[in-house]
């Protein structure tokens, strides 16, 4: 049998959170659920939540699915914060958390 | 019957001898020179010979001069060079005589078969060194509705004529190969082969 560069471990085992020096934090009271952050995240580290009790800017947004950040994989690049049209994402120093 | 077979096999050996036979086709894009070289190869192959056939590839378009080649041998054909000194030249379009040197490298006393009416080629002094044969393949093709009158496809007719004047390959083999390789109008093509076989003249 030949040697093959494969590993019986999915890349989801490879948690990249330790790469992060700043973390994005969503302020749900400003978030309109437009999902632009979810679209732009280069590491698919932003997911979608269903039916969670989250804050919202006003009643109209209360029934919509909301983005959430998976901190196991987020590398802290800040693209989501940069792209958010409502300034609803803050980049916070990890040391302050 | 057996005597006839023996006679035919002696005849074909005496024609080919122990050497390779090389044929060059000149035509214009769309006249079927490349297919003609393949039909001739297939016909000879059916008689037990070894063959190759290949086009000279340039930038192809309808109407541009094209050349194609066939090699026929009793042994497997090893040579993969271009053909420089053909034994025969087959000219599908006589107007090419004014553009290129169609007899370039043709062996002395080699055969040149021209798609033409007889009188049209008598004025060409450079043909004197060769055995010249003519057949009006264009009229035959038009008569058999091969291609359209402006662009008749003359390749099958000229091969019928070649079978007669060269003695390299039998009429039946050309007919068999034509059946195999004609994309359409099989009967018309076979008629053209037969008519040209009858009409060709050595001058």
């Amino acid at each position, binding site marked *: 049998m030949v040697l093959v560069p494969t590993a019986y471990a999915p890349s989801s085992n490879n948690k990249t959170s330790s790469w992060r020096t700043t973390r994005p934090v969503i302020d749900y009271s400003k978030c309109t659920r437009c999902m632009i952050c979810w679209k732009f995240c280069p590491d698919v580290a932003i997911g979608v939540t269903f039916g969670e009790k989250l804050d919202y800017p006003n009643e109209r947004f209360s029934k919509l699915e909301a983005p959430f950040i998976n901190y196991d994989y987020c590398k802290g690049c800040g693209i989501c914060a940069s792209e958010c049209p409502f300034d609803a994402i803050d980049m916070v120093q990890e040391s302050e958390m | 019957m057996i005597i006839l077979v023996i006679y035919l096999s002696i005849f074909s050996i005496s024609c080919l001898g122990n050497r390779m036979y090389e044929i060059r086709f000149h035509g214009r894009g769309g006249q079927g020179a490349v297919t003609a070289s393949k039909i001739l190869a297939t016909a000879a192959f059916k008689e037990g010979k070894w*063959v190759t056939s*290949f086009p000279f590839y340039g930038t192809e378009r309808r109407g541009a001069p094209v050349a194609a080649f066939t090699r026929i041998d009793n042994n497997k054909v090893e040579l*993969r060079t271009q053909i420089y000194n053909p034994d025969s030249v087959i000219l599908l379009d006589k107007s090419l005589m004014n553009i290129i040197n169609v007899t370039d490298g043709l062996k002395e006393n080699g055969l040149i078969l021209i798609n033409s009416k007889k009188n049209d080629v008598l004025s060409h002094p450079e043909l004197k060194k060769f055995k010249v044969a003519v057949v009006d393949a264009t009229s035959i093709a038009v008569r058999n509705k091969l291609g359209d009158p402006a662009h008749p496809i003359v390749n099958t007719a000229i091969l019928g004529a070649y079978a007669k004047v060269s003695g390299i390959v039998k009429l039946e083999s050309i007919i068999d190969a034509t059946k195999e390789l004609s994309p359409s109008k099989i009967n018309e093509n076979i008629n053209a082969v037969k008519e040209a076989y009858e009409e060709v003249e050595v001058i």
Partner: protein
Amino acid sequence: MRAINKNWSIMTGNEAVALATKLAGVKFVSAYPITPQTAIVEKIAEMVANEKMDAKFIEVESEHSAMASVMGSELAGVRSFTASSSHGILYMHEMLNWVAGMRLPILMAVVNRSIGPPWNIWADHSDTMTQRDTGWMQLYGESNQEAMDTIILGYKLAENKDILLPIMVMQDAFTLSHTSEPVEIRDEEKVREFVGEFNLPFKIDINKPMGYGSLMPPDGPFMELKMDMKKSMYSGVNKFIEITKEFNETFDANFPGPVEGFMMDDADYALITLGSISSTAKHVVRNLRNQGKKVGLLRILLYRPFPKDLVINYLRGLKGFGVVDRSSTYGPFGSLYMDVISSIYGKLDIPAANFIAGLGGRDVRVVDFEEMFMRIMEGEDGEIWINAGVK
């Protein structure tokens, strides 16, 4: 006279390759057309459309994507095939390394064509010579029969569980790809039995997720993987000899194997060649033998892995030889010459010339081979360009 009881057909090299993929049971084809390879892809697409070939064919927008998509299908455990030429090969260079490093036994037919500028569509080995170090095996055929047979042999060799490497199967542009000549069509059932079922040991399985080719640090088995590739590739020489023997018995054929010695037994001088010009060279060898000159020809069919021990055995006892390179590379000598000379280093001491011939489809004529033999018989060495020079 040839045997008449066989299934002969007059076909071009391109047609022979297309038919061979059908016979070998290829199930997935993805390719991008480029002259002179186009006819292979057209023929396969036609056979698939007419349901004469049970395979999936997809068009892609580039050669890079073609190689990427056959990589995907092969990983899923499906026997896959692609074909290209010239600049297409260069464009897939990155993926060629990936496919080899992932140990995927894909076959690719290459119709050898020169590399521009200037644009030139004719025969020359420069395209595949630039890819000789990508981890692909390389087979250079001499006839349309070999174009068909190397595909069949190739799948059996590539998919062997101790080899698992991709193979490029070469034929020369126009001199084979567009030349019609008799080819014996191998029996489909026998071919299927000969090639066998394809079973990739590490194929994608959704129930057992795996990482493929992910990051490996310097102390990970990176170097060991490369060592294993080289070991597998070089075990391919003997495996190829075994498979050739089995092929010849199964199909009553005379496929030569990794190298072919022609009139080499008592030869004093010989040429070493690749590809279709070997056929013309044989014709010249025969003629020179008739004139009493003891010459021979050694044809390299399997260029990667380079069958160095076989080459040494053939060259032993010669008074001189020449190596014909049909590619423009910029080492101190042509690539085939350097492979031969480094193989015999310290073992044989024979004067050897390097001939560069036939670039960009320039005809390598009978007189050119006669000149090469004359020059090695006069003891010339160094790099000599044949039938070239500003006129």
